[in-house]
């Protein structure tokens, strides 16, 4: 039983399209305008909402045209008479927004097109007979193309389908030789040729692409047989419960979610079931024998009662799972577009959305509904009229403690409504109801208000994105903004970002970035003007990368503009790679230096090194001291020879000398390479080396490489006093050092006589305390004592102490009346030296008195 009634209202302010079906009951619904055509299918209502009066004016309607419309209110592509091949009258490819506004139009110059389709990112795919697929953007500019395989050129594409899966947009074709080829993601093209289908000649009677268990398969029928073809095999299948007498399958379709399958047989039966062919939902006899032109699933997410829309030239039929059908006459050729939550029906004059009415809307708008939402709506209406009935209604809801539920229903229903006045009425009612609740979270109300405002704005015919709230939620705000940006609705996108208070990074900045990237492609404006415009708008917006924009400009061949834009880039690191790409290496170098990132500088330098000839390279570095010194460091570790050239070029004598010095040590061939203009110390060193070599040759002394001091030491140790003496004079060694050296050396060799002779050779420049101490170090107290007398008065005490002569030390200290010296002696005294201690203490006391 089809229990169906339709409500028809004609209120002046709304454009209402009503299509009545079955028997219609005209009711003036006490409430207000509902621009719906409702019909019941058991307990399910379907509504057909007019979306747009199409802005286009198509001469011949949609007849003889290839039409592709993208879901989610996507654009419509139209190729008129695709098979007209005479070069004099090429078919026209037209792209429209969903509301029919022309976006692009151009004559089709390539080969015959079999199928049009849209990718998930709103790019148009044109699949040609020869298997090549041409990709255009929304504005009709060619992006790229790919081929579905070489063999297709011969066998030709007979039919093709564009499908969407979690992996992206895919293309499936069937060739004249009955072979299927699949590409699951056109952005990552991997062609898969499916196995042959037994007994298939030419194209199958109908087929569909399925995505199941991460696999893409083709379901096809050949006469009465049904096959599933996957990568490796072709399996014959039988849909459960399909009566054998129904004949062969002539049309099939899968749902938006790939979960459901509908098959249409030549006996007019429509079988529905799960797409894995495990379950049957229903089988309806449509009583129409001809295969439908189009067949589309119509359901909303979570609904348990899916239905299928079949369309013939003059008839639209909705078949549910409960054997009932609803029929609409159609006067014009239409195209059905399956959506997530319904079907869009596009005709040459207008566009409608056919969908299952959401439960909550049914609850509220059902005749004589007692749902809390409905009562609240009524209450509010009465309240507006200042009627006391408002209170009665409210009381009724409150008695059932359903006010929260009522508000929630009104808010949710508002989200689903397409008509702005209905939205307002529902939201007002919700807001009214909210007043009587104390702890109701306003979040859903606020977000619904905001989202509806955005949806209403994008639904405007001038924008033409007829999204439902469900679709909007599914596609997310980010994607919506991307789509608006892609369609170049920059101001609207920015308004939305600001209105919804999206952080700049994800919102406004992103829009500006796209805007700027688009702006730099405007050929009619001068570089100067564009740079200024971009800078003015983008300014310091966070997250907008000027280098990204510049890269775009460079891509379009506007190098000068790119450089101008790069100037605004704050991150030098970002500037450099692009500058190198544009062959502005000098500028790249200075930017790299500016960034302070030495790795970046190294990168540019090594790039330059490969790009330039050596002379230019060095000259360039010379102008960039930071880069130069980094390069020097690099050379020091990696290319010593280059280092020399660098210093030579810069006339850096100091560094050059250093280089020679370390080079000579490295090679262990000393003084072979005479550095230019040697300084006195270097001359000395060379003199020393000559001397050492001579002596090594003569006496095998092994002196080479020793320092002067070490050489003298070695000579003295070997007893070569004369030679040591010679060095001492030749190299003007200070007396002090020489004396120390000789003193130590003699003491070490215990040549005490020689030492005494030496001490008397002249007055010691290092004093005689040194003699005492050195002797003591060799444990020769006897010799040490000899020198104590020669020590200056100031050091006498120390000298006496050094040889352990406490008495002498005490005498000297007392003589000098030096308190601290006395204390020093005292500290060395032990208990056995009591007499001495007393003496010292007395002397100390008397000194202190004075």
């Amino acid at each position, binding site marked *: 039983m089809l229990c169906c009634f339709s409500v028809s209202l004609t209120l002046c302010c709304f454009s209402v399209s009503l299509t009545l079906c079955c028997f219609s009951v005209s009711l003036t619904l006490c409430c207000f305008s509902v621009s719906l055509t409702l019909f019941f299918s058991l307990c399910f209502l379907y509504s057909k909402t007019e979306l747009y009066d199409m802005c286009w004016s198509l001469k011949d309607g949609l007849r003889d045209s290839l039409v592709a419309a993208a879901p989610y209110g996507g654009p419509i592509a139209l190729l008129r008479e695709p098979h007209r091949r005479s070069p004099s009258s090429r078919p026209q490819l037209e792209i429209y927004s969903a509301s029919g506004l022309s976006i692009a139009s151009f004559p089709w110059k390539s080969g015959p097109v079999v199928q049009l389709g849209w990718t998930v990112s709103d790019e148009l795919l044109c699949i040609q007979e020869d298997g090549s697929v041409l990709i255009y953007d929304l504005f009709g500019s060619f992006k790229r193309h790919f081929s579905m395989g070489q063999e297709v050129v011969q066998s030709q594409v007979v039919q093709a389908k564009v499908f969407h899966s979690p992996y992206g947009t895919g293309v499936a074709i069937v060739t004249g030789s009955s072979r299927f080829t699949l590409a699951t993601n056109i952005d990552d093209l991997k062609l898969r040729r499916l196995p042959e289908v037994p007994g298939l000649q030419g194209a199958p009677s109908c087929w569909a692409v399925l995505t199941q268990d991460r696999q893409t398969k083709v379901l096809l029928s050949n006469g009465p047989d049904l096959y599933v073809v996957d990568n490796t095999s072709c399996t014959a299948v039988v849909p459960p419960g399909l009566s054998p007498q129904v004949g062969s399958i002539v049309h099939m379709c899968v749902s938006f979610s790939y979960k459901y399958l509908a098959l249409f047989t030549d006996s007019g039966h429509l079988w529905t079931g799960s797409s894995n062919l495990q379950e049957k939902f229903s089988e309806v006899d449509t009583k129409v024998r001809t295969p439908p032109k189009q067949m589309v699933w119509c359901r909303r997410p979570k609904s348990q009662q899916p239905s299928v829309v079949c369309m013939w030239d003059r008839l639209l039929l909705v078949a549910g799972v409960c054997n009932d059908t609803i029929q609409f006459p159609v006067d014009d050729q239409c195209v059905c577009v399956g959506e997530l939550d319904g079907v869009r029906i596009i005709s040459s004059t207008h566009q409608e959305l056919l969908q299952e009415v959401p439960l909550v809307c049914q609850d509220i708008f059902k005749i004589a509904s007692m749902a809390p939402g409905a009562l609240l709506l009524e209450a509010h209406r009465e309240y507006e009229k200042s009627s006391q009935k408002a209170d009665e209604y409210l009381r009724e809801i409150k008695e059932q403690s359903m006010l929260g539920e009522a508000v929630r229903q009104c808010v949710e229903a508002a989200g689903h409504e397409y008509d702005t006045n209905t939205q307002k009425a529902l939201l007002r009612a919700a807001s009214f109801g909210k007043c009587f609740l104390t702890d109701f979270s306003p979040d859903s109300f606020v977000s619904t208000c905001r989202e509806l405002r955005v949806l209403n704005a994008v639904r405007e015919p001038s924008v033409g994105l007829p999204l439902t709230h469900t679709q909007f939620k599914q596609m997310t705000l980010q994607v919506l903004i991307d789509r608006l940006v892609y369609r170049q609705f920059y101001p609207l996108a920015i308004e939305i970002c600001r209105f919804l208070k999206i952080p700049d990074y994800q919102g406004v900045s992103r829009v500006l970035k796209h805007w700027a990237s688009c702006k730099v492609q405007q050929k009619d404006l001068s570089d100067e003007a564009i740079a200024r415009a971009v800078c003015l708008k983008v300014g310091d917006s*966070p997250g907008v990368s000027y280098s990204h924009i510049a890269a775009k400009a460079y891509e379009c061949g506007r190098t000068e503009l790119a450089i101008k834009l790069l100037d605004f880039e704050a991150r030098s690191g970002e500037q450099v790679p692009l500058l190198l790409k544009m062959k502005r290496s000098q500028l790249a170098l200075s930017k790299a230096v500016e960034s302070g990132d030495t*790795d970046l500088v190294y990168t540019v330098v090594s790039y330059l090194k490969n790009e330039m000839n050596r002379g230019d390279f060095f000259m360039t570095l010379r102008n960039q001291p930071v880069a130069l010194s980094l390069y020097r460091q*690099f050379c020091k570790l990696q290319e010593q020879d280059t280092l020399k050239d660098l210093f030579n070029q810069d006339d850096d004598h100091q560094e050059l000398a250093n280089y020679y*010095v370390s080079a000579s040590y490295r090679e262990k061939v000393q003084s072979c390479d005479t550095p230019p203009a040697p300084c006195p110390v270097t001359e000395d060193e060379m003199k020393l080396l000559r001397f050492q070599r001579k002596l090594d040759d003569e006496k095998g002394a092994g002196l080479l490489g020793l320092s002067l*001091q070490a050489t003298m030491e070695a000579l003295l140790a070997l007893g070569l006093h004369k030679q040591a003496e010679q060095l001492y004079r030749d190299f003007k060694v200070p007396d002090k050092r020489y004396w120390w050296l000789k003193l130590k050396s003699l003491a070490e060799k215990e040549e005490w006589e020689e030492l005494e002779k030496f001490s008397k050779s002249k007055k010691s420049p290092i004093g005689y305390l040194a003699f005492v101490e050195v002797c003591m170090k060799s444990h020769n107290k006897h010799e040490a004592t000899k020198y104590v007398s020669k020590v200056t008065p100031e050091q006498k005490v120390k000298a006496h102490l050094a040889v352990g002569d406490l008495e002498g030390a005490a005498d000297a200290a007392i003589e000098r009346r030096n308190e601290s010296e006395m204390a020093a002696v005292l500290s060395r005294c032990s208990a056995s030296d009591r007499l001495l201690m007393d003496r010292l203490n007395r002397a100390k006391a008397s000194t202190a008195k004075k």
Partner: protein
Amino acid sequence: MAAHLSYGRVNLNILREAARKELREFLDKCAGSKAIVWDEYLTGPFGLIAQYSLLKEHEVEKMFTLKRGRLPSADVKNIIFFVRPRLELMDIIAENVFSEDKMHSSRDFHILFVPRRSMLCEQRLKEQGVLGSFINIDEYILDLIPYDGDLLSMEYESAFRECYLENDQTSLYHTAKGLMTLQALYGTIPQIYGKGECARHVANMMLRMKREFAGSQNQILPVFDTLLLLDRNVDLLTPLATQLTYEGLIDEIYGINNGYVKLPPEKFAQKKQGEASKDLPTEPKKLQLNSAEELYAEIRDKNFNAVGAALSKKAKIISAAFEERHNAKTVGEIKQFVSQLPHMQAARSSLANHTSIAELIKDITTSEAFFDNLTVEQEFMTGVDTDKVNTYIEDCIAQKDPLIKILRLVCMQSVCNNGLKQKVLDYYKREILQTYGYEHILTLNNLEKGGLLKLQTSSRNNYPTIRKTLKLWMEDANEQNPNDISYVYSGYAPLSIRLTQVLARPGWRSIEEVLKMLPGPHFEERQQLPAGLHKKRQQGENRTTLVFFLGGVTYAEIAALRFLSQMEDSGMEYIIATTKLINGTTWIKSLMDRPESQAP
């Protein structure tokens, strides 16, 4: 484990935790068992971030040191190279990878660049044909490492050398990046002051980086009020002087590396009864030094002459605490006593350690040589006879004392005299070359390039002016109960810290003249804070300054800053950051060139 990091004014443990988190994330990226191949230089700094236990938790089973040839065999799934981005290391890695392939094993390779990945190195790996062998190439941004509760170090040894000798500002870039990380965690620092070329460069980079991040406004309430960037070459004198604080002396004598010191073992022998004293431990005693140790935190910054008293006072307190046990009568009292035992025992062993260290140091500080050296240093700092050849230096050269000691003194004389006269300079140079060998001419050139040794060009020596204006010499430094920062060098107040002190009060405007005499520009920058983040200061609440020493800082300088933080009326607390903790010896060493060691 690193609780001491969070006790300070600024909780530096946040930084450490952030670093650990990132390390864990990287390790988890390489699923399965792993072996780490270390660039040896990195192990020390990493030790401050994560112990082996953390690595073990993330399936690190083996650790190797990066060296040429074939990798040691280890039954692990992943080999991870932890390396600095240096070309020579890339060549070694390439060699490792090549020899690995021959063995037909299927270990996965990864590289973690510390502190930053480098295109140059990746290019090198590509040239060597091994870039494709690596599954993960990542960077581990480890710039500022929390070293102690108030101290951050980059552990970047060659920073001074690179900046002043080689004009390589890589370290400054890392510094700026590190400061950006710090600001991301602790809020934007509203005021930046600086003195010196490098400071200017770092500040410029920071401001530029801030612009790059524009938009992602930092919403953290600023912890630091001020950042002060100081070039080491503004104050070359301080590191040359011998530090006289406890910690400073430990560093001068034994060297503190990444927070650890190795000491001669003799003094630490466990004297157990019945054991022959012959088998003394031969391994050096390794101790970790940081403020986690209560006693150390107390005495580290004292002048060494005040350490003895502090130690004996502590000894009394501890023994008194142990005596408490006799008073414990009731079970409850005994229980309480026992509960304190672990802490007391730790305190006692800590006391024993430091008494031993103090004894070791005292042996040296009371020696004549130490005294003579110090006397000459102080003469130079007070400006006595700085324009003549110093006889003590002459004698030291004649006796062939260690070269670094000579260089420290000569450089000090040069700095205190604003350069040496040609005659004096030439004399020293000849003496050094003739005694220690001609090859040291490269080192001398380096010191000249770095400004530590120079020819007096202008006839005027401005060091006395600087000394007087900034009161760098305090005649009556009180070592026991200091009232001025000069106690850290027993008379000399470090120039760098005086600049810091004056900046806080009364401000640099009062010393414009002196600032002009010191090298490099001085500057002030402000960073805008987002509205609502301006601090509402409580009455008497101290301000916090981050002092960043570019090119290294000494322990004595840190001690001086801590002293300033603790001064009641200073109103300022200091957090210290640096490229590396240095002393005169390590500093000069980093500037030396040995031709042999350069040979490939």
